[in-house]
C-alpha cells in the first residue's frame, strides 16, 4: 500500500508541479504580454490559461478515467475540443459574454457530474443509465468554451487582427490541453490494471465530486458576494 501511495505522490507531483509553480488563470501580467506581443502572445496566454485553469483539467481527468482505449481518448477529447472551440471563437467574435462566476459555476458542476458518473452514481442513486457520454462531453465542451470566451473578453484585445487573436488564443488552449493531458493520460493508462488502481480510481473521482461542489459554492459565493 505504501508503494502505491508513493506512486500516487510521485506521479501526481510530476503532473502537478508545473501547475503549482504557475499562477492561476489570467492576470495583469498577461494583459501586458497581450498588449505588447503578437499573435504568439495569445497562443501563450491561451496555453497558460488551460494549464493553470484547474476546472477544465479536472473535467478532462474525469473523462479520461472513464475511457479505456487510446482511440476513445482521442475521440472524446476531439469532441470536447470542437465544442469549446465553437463557443470560444463564436462568443468572443460576437461579443457574447456572461458573468464569469455563473459560467465557472456551471463548469464546476461539469466536474461534479463527471466524478459522479464515473462512480456509477446514476445507476446507484437514480437507477438509470448515464446519459450518452459523447453528447455530454460535447455539451460541456460548449460550456467550457463559453467560460474561456468570457475570460478572453476580460482582456483588452483591441480591434486589429481580432479574429486572428481569438483563433490564436484557441490554438494556445489546445496546445495547453495537449501538454496537460499527456502526463494525465500516462498516469491513468499506466496504472490501470495494477495494484491500487481501484482505490486510486475511487479516490480521484470522489475528489472530483468534492472539488466540483466546492468550486460551485465558491463561484456562487463570488456571484452573490
Amino acid at each position, binding site marked *: 500500500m505504501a508503494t502505491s*501511495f508513493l506512486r500516487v505522490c510521485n506521479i501526481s507531483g510530476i503532473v502537478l508541479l508545473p501547475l503549482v509553480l504557475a499562477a*492561476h488563470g489570467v492576470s495583469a501580467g498577461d494583459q501586458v504580454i497581450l498588449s505588447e506581443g503578437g499573435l504568439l502572445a495569445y497562443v501563450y496566454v491561451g496555453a497558460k490559461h488551460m494549464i493553470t485553469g484547474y476546472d477544465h483539467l479536472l473535467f478532462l481527468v474525469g473523462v479520461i478515467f472513464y475511457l479505456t482505449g487510446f482511440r476513445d481518448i482521442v475521440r472524446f477529447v476531439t469532441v470536447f475540443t470542437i465544442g469549446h472551440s465553437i463557443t470560444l471563437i463564436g462568443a468572443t467574435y460576437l461579443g457574447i459574454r456572461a458573468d464569469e462566476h455563473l459560467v465557472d459555476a456551471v463548469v464546476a458542476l461539469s466536474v461534479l457530474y463527471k466524478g459522479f458518473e464515473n462512480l456509477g452514481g446514476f445507476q446507484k442513486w437514480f437507477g438509470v443509465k448515464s446519459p450518452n457520454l459523447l453528447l455530454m462531453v460535447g455539451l460541456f465542451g460548449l460550456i467550457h468554451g463559453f467560460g474561456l470566451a468570457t475570460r478572453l473578453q476580460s482582456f483588452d484585445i483591441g480591434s486589429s487582427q481580432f479574429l486572428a487573436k481569438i483563433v490564436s488564443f484557441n490554438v494556445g488552449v489546445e496546445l495547453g490541453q495537449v501538454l496537460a493531458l499527456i502526463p494525465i493520460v500516462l498516469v491513468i493508462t499506466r496504472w490501470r490494471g495494477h495494484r491500487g488502481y481501484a482505490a486510486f480510481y475511487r479516490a480521484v473521482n470522489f475528489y472530483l465530486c468534492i472539488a466540483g461542489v466546492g468550486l460551485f459554492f465558491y463561484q456562487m459565493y463570488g456571484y452573490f458576494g
Partner: protein
Amino acid sequence: MKKLVFAAFALIVLCSHDMYLKLDSYFLQPNSKVSIQLFNGTFAKSENTIDRDRMVDVSVLANGERLRMDSTQWREDGDVTVLDFTTESSGTYVAGVSTRARSLAMDAEAFNSYLEHDGVVDELERRRADDNLESDAVEKYSKHVKTIVQVGDTRTDDWQTTLGYPIEFVPLSNPYDLHTGDRLQVRLLWEGQPLADQLVIVDAEAGEHGHEHDAATDHEHGPENEGHTHEGMSQLRTDAEGIIDVEVTHDGSWFLRTIYMQDSEEEGLTHESNWATLTFAVDHGHSHAAGADQAHDHEAGIPTYAWWIGSIVLVGGLFFYFQKRA
C-alpha cells in the same frame, strides 16, 4: 420612445465618418513600443488612411514636453494609419493629430442627410427654419483628434494641457483616476475659448473591444456598420462654460465627438466645420501597465499552489481510505 432615441443615436455613431486616435490598450508600459491607430470612419472601422500631407500637427505630450512627430513615423496597415512610437517614463500622455482643411461640394439632399446622420442637428434645424433645405453646400472641413493614455502607474498633468487645435476637448480631471460610476467633466474649446451649447456625442465600447464584424461601411453615411455594444451612448450639450458632465457607466474605451458647423464667408464656400474627438479608457480603476503578475480583480481567489497541495492531500487521504477498505 427610448428605443427610438437610442436608435437615432446609434445611427449617428455608427454611420459617421469621424476621425479617432485609438489603441489596442490605453494602458501602456514605460519604454515600450506602441502603435497609435488613426481611424477615419467610425470608432469601429477605419474606411481609409490619411495622407501625411494632410497632417498639420502630430504631437505627443508627455511629462511636460511636447514631441512633434514627423511623417516618417507613420505607416499604413490596411485602412488604418498607424503611428509607431516608443513611450518613455511613466505618466499620463496625450497624443493629437490636426488635419488640414479640405472642401467638399454636396447637393442639398446629400448635405441634409450628412447633417442628420453625423449629428449636426443644429445646422439642419437652422436650414429648416431658414427654408434652406433645398440649397446645395460647399463645406470646408478639418478634423482635430486627441487621445489620452496612461503609461505606467504615475499620473501626470499633461491631460489638462491644450494642444492649441481650432477645436479641442480638454478634460477637467485625469480620466485615469476614474472608476466606473464616477463622472468626468470635459471642456470644449473653440479657438481657445469655451464653446457653449454645442452638441457632443459620448459613447463607449465595453471592455475596450473595438472590433468590428466586417460590415461593408459606406463612406457616404451608409447604415450598414453594426455589431458593437454602445452601452454608454449619450448626447450632451455643453453648458455656458463649454463643459459637459459625463457619467462613466462602465469600463471600456470611451470617445467624445462633436462637429462645430458655421456658415462660411469664404469665397466658394457655404459652410465650415471643425471636428473634434477625444478617446480614453476606463478599466477597473487599475493600471495594466504595472507589469506585475498580479491577478485581476475577478481573478482573485484560491492561490493555485494551495489548491493543488490541498488536492494532493485530499486524493492521498481518499486513496488510503479506499485502499484500506479494499
